[in-house]
């Protein structure tokens, strides 16, 4: 296997809050090859966005980020200075945000904003930048692209804006693209269009993508690799097939039971649930964070939790198979 494009080891993010320190992200490991789509899935507040912002070096000043390793194409991001990060951002790694309605600056035309992305990193003329903008707008499926350059964000619908955001992320031809819930705010029909577009572009341009979402459907359809996050930790990682066909961590299984699966869940029958609520992450945290909501919790859950499974499917649980065998999903 070649050297991964991105390699993260033991990423921790601490946020000072009123009552102490919020250990928002703890001990995250993952790697990503070129041309691969990694999907990070997890419920709201599980630390998905923080993880992606940490990669981009966009965390706020107060937020403390530590990692044993965080390499992007051999560049050690933990040591990279502000200037170096800035040079990377938008050029070799770029990001698409969740809210297309607010992620574009209302004061400038989309042409200006698109061109700016290129002008910041490449020594090109304004006109060249605009040409590139038109090219990309067309690529993301916007018709009459040249005439759109002079429009302001508010004149576009949500779906169009998200396409503009994607075009903007692609302006410099990045190697890594991080999409943080790019379709959550959109209608289902548009979601499908945008996701299809993204996936196609990633393949076409041989980029790596991290797709953050809480929608298991999206994950299943888009991801090569899946990382399931719960309360700041990665509880299970693996190929999409492995995760969906053999979910090993009780939380992953719980999640899958919560959503009605066509053909598998009887119409109107009760859905599975995960009782309880996410624990507070303020203060010292030891053992398995899911133990408070887990049917299989035992005393050992308070201790050290082993990594189980092999490289392409790993999970953290005290139970050898995460008690998977006890609750084989009805076929």
């Amino acid at each position, binding site marked *: 296997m070649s050297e991964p494009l991105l390699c993260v080891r033991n990423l921790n993010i601490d946020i000072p809050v009123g009552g102490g320190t919020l250990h928002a992200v703890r001990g995250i490991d993952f790697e990503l090859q070129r041309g691969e789509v990694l999907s990070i899935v997890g419920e709201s507040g599980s630390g998905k966005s923080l993880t992606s912002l940490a990669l981009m070096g966009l965390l706020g000043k107060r937020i403390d980020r530590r990692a044993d390793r965080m390499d992007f194409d051999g560049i050690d991001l933990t040591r990279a200075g502000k200037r170096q990060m800035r040079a990377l951002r938008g050029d070799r790694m770029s990001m698409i945000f969740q809210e297309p309605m607010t992620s574009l600056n209302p004061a400038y035309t989309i042409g200006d904003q698109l061109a700016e992305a290129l002008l910041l990193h490449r020594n090109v003329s304004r006109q060249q930048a605009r040409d590139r903008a038109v090219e990309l707008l067309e690529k993301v499926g916007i018709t009459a692209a040249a005439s759109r350059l002079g429009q302001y964000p508010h004149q576009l619908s949500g779906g169009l804006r998200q396409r503009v955001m994607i075009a903007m992320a692609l302006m410099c031809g990045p190697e890594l693209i991080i999409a943080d819930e790019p379709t959550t705010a959109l209608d289902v029909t548009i979601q499908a269009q945008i996701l299809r577009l993204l996936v196609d572009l990633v393949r076409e341009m041989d980029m790596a993508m991290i797709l953050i979402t809480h929608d298991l459907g999206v994950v299943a359809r888009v991801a090569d690799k899946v990382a399931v996050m719960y309360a700041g930790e990665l509880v299970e990682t693996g190929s999409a097939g492995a995760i969906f066909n053999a979910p090993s961590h009780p939380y992953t299984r719980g999640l899958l039971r919560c959503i009605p699966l066509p053909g598998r869940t009887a119409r109107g029958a009760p859905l599975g649930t995960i*009782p*309880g*609520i996410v624990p507070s992450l303020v203060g010292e945290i030891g053992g398995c964070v899911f133990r*408070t*909501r887990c049917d299989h919790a035992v005393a050992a859950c308070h201790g050290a939790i082993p990594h189980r499974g092999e490289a392409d499917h790993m999970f953290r649980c005290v139970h050898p198979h995460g008690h998977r065998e006890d609750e084989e999903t009805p076929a």
Partner: protein
Amino acid sequence: MSDLSDPLLQEITGPTPGQLLRKRVFGHQGLIFGLAVVAILAVVAILAPVIAPHDPYAQSLVARMKPPVFLGGTWENPLGTDHLGRDYLSRLIYGARVSLMIGGIAALISGVIGTAMGVAAGYFGGKVDAVVTFLINVRLAMPVVLVALAVVAILGGSLTVVIAVLGLLLWDRFAVVMRASTLQVRGREYVAAAQAIGASTPRILLSEIMPNIVNNLIVVVTLEMAHAILLEAALSFLGLGVQPPTPSWGLMVSEGKNMMLFEPWLVLIPGAVLFVLVLAINLMGDGLRDVTAPENRS
């Protein structure tokens, strides 16, 4: 529903709004300072007859402009005497009454007017809103100081007139803020829920909307109180506010102004207490805003 009995699900997490409020209040230095100063001055104002060492109106022309103790005066008149030999400290103490009364009542009057207008505009929208917005515009376009001066000049300056004029002029901010808050709250789903339940409009206004905008109202009340106090002082300073011998701080500055170059304390003392009072009320208002509606901080 077996899974619902899990104790962790039932966990009631946060503190009550009351506890939160208390915690925020005591953590807010500005608010504590403001509250303390205002409270002290209010006590002083209420107890003026007890605390004041002299009759604030008792003049003694032979004992004019005696310096305060820290400038070599005597403890007989700790802050000296004014240009008619009246005890400065006593006048300051009674002046607190005037200022607080003016601020309080003017804010009350304008608060009632402005809130009624603002809430009506925000809740009913449409034509009511258009009319209220227009009135607010008209009101804002009128130069307050000038109009107040003109009215006081016509009706003659007295405490009642000044209070009434300020009360009738300062409702704009109430209307603006209450309109915006009502508009905001009105769009919340709990209002729609109450409507769907069949609650009457007055009930919705009083029990669903008011409790949620009253914090903003309190903030505006304090700010307008400070505004009224400052305006009264300015009017009195210009000679068209409260009339002598009423011990208004603005009037005291105005009277002391003549000797400003020679006896600056005559101006500094009443000006400073005025500054401190207004500062305290403003800090209180800012603090209340921070504490009750941190999201509306501006």
